[in-house]
């Protein structure tokens, strides 16, 4: 009458067999690197065939050389540091403020139009002000990153807390649960899928914020490096920097997806965006 959904058991088999089987089941594991190789080969061929100057468009080989010869670690860590500090600030403020706003319906109703107005304003446009107020150091970039990352978190925290299943609230009311018990036991855990979706957007936005801040005025960081290389017509260097940036982005995304899967093992997997 009743069945338990067990996870499929993996049959043990020789390594070569299981590899072949895996590739058969997931051909994209082979196709993803194949696309990369194909793009690189065609790109390299076009550059060489038409003899396009390196300062207009570098070949993949030039980019690879620039990647190896230029030290990116320092700049990458600097930018990553700014972005992560900004992200943490945004996460703490976004979750706390979102939690408070969602607890008081009047506050929510009063503030919501303003939040929407601010969210729809491009925060990048405010960045020059932060440079003016907080200088060329790390602080201004952290604040720019935090500002940009803050709103997707805040909005998702509020709508996540607001969309609590009424049946769960009724259950808690039938037990005469306090406001705090309802918040910690039902509302907050139930809002986690939405909160994680916000954090996922925010962590990428925080890198964007750090780079924009560095464009506007900075002495270090990958954004600063791109500006300098652009001035020196070091196009290969710019491409190499972009490569580093996208690698950082992918790593952060994977990290968030990992945390999400750990924290939301119970949620309907179709609701969790995966890589």
């Amino acid at each position: 009458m009743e069945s338990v959904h067990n996870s499929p058991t993996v049959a043990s088999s020789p390594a070569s067999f299981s590899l072949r089987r895996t590739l058969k089941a997931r051909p994209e594991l082979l196709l993803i690197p194949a696309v990369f190789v194909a793009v690189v080969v065609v790109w390299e061929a076009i550059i060489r065939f038409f003899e396009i100057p390196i300062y207009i468009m570098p070949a993949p080989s030039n980019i690879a050389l620039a990647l190896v010869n230029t030290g990116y670690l320092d700049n990458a860590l600097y930018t990553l540091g700014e972005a992560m500090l900004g992200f943490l600030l945004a996460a703490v403020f976004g979750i706390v403020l979102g939690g408070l706003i969602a607890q008081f319906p009047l506050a929510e109703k009063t503030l919501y139009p303003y939040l929407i107005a601010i969210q729809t304003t491009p925060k990048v446009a405010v960045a020059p002000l932060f440079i003016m107020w907080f200088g060329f150091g790390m602080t201004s970039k952290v604040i720019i990153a935090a500002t940009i990352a803050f709103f997707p978190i805040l909005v998702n925290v509020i709508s996540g807390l607001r969309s609590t299943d009424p049946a769960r609230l009724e259950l808690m009311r039938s037990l005469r649960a306090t406001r705090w018990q309802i918040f910690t036991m039902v509302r907050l855990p139930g809002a986690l899928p939405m909160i994680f979706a916000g954090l996922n957007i925010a962590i990428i936005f925080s890198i964007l914020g750090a780079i924009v801040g560095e464009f506007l005025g900075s002495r270090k960081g990958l954004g600063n490096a791109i500006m300098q290389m652009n001035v020196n017509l070091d196009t290969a260097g710019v491409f190499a920097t972009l490569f580093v940036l996208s690698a950082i982005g992918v790593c952060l995304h994977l990290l968030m997806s990992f945390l999400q899967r750990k924290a939301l093992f119970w949620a309907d997997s179709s609701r969790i965006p995966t890589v």
Partner: protein
Amino acid sequence: MSVMSIVRDTSFSQEAENAVNGPAAIVVEALEKTYATHDGGKVQALGPISVTVPQGGFMTIVGPSGCGKSTLLKLLSGLIPRSAGSIKVNGEEVHEPHRDIGMVFQSPVLLPWKTAIENVLLPARVLGLDMASSRVRAQELLDMVGLADFANRYPNELSGGMQQRVAIARSLIHDPSILMMDEPFGALDAMTREVMNLELLRIWRKAGKTVIFVTHSIPEAIFLGTHVMVLSNRPGRIADLVTVDLPAERGLDIMSTDAFGVYSKRIRSQFNTQGFI
């Protein structure tokens, strides 16, 4: 069982009732629920209803959809305020959800991030009961509902019937004397539903609780109940109160007996005269 009677007119004497049946678990007098309409008028949703449920009784409430069965249950449990009348649970006037009531809803309403046993323990946590002894009790309740081996499973690993059993165990963790169930098996398939009905009767006999059970199935109402309250169309009033005099130990085969058919016919005729079939 047959001596148990339910007084439905408003001018009943509680002493007389108690003398016959022992103490009453729930006493409802002239209960009404009205809603205000947007143009300032009032709509009568329910009542007036007067009824007494004896301790240890199993009252099923049956009626057409929209007649206010669920509203009546929410009123009795104190989840929504009444417009008039009085509700006494174990002699105390009900104004808010009562500590001595366990609720089972139409859907299991389990928290998907908690295991079965943690879900059962939720009321104990909310009410601040001793967790060590509650944990022992939670495991006993899971044993009782036949889920001894599923304590550490998450809800999405359990079937619909199993989830509803967890919900029943949860409603009993704080040892309430009254269990209120709002169409708890409505979403289950017919086979599972019959098994759950048998389980519920077994649990009721074992735990000795007073049960109020809302359903829209006439056979389910007769099969489970010691008393069946038939509600009329909106505004829901008591159209009939049937005392079911069938053996307490009953199996599914009782549904094909003549006695069962007589009850079924009586309730169905109420439905017919009301014009809601």
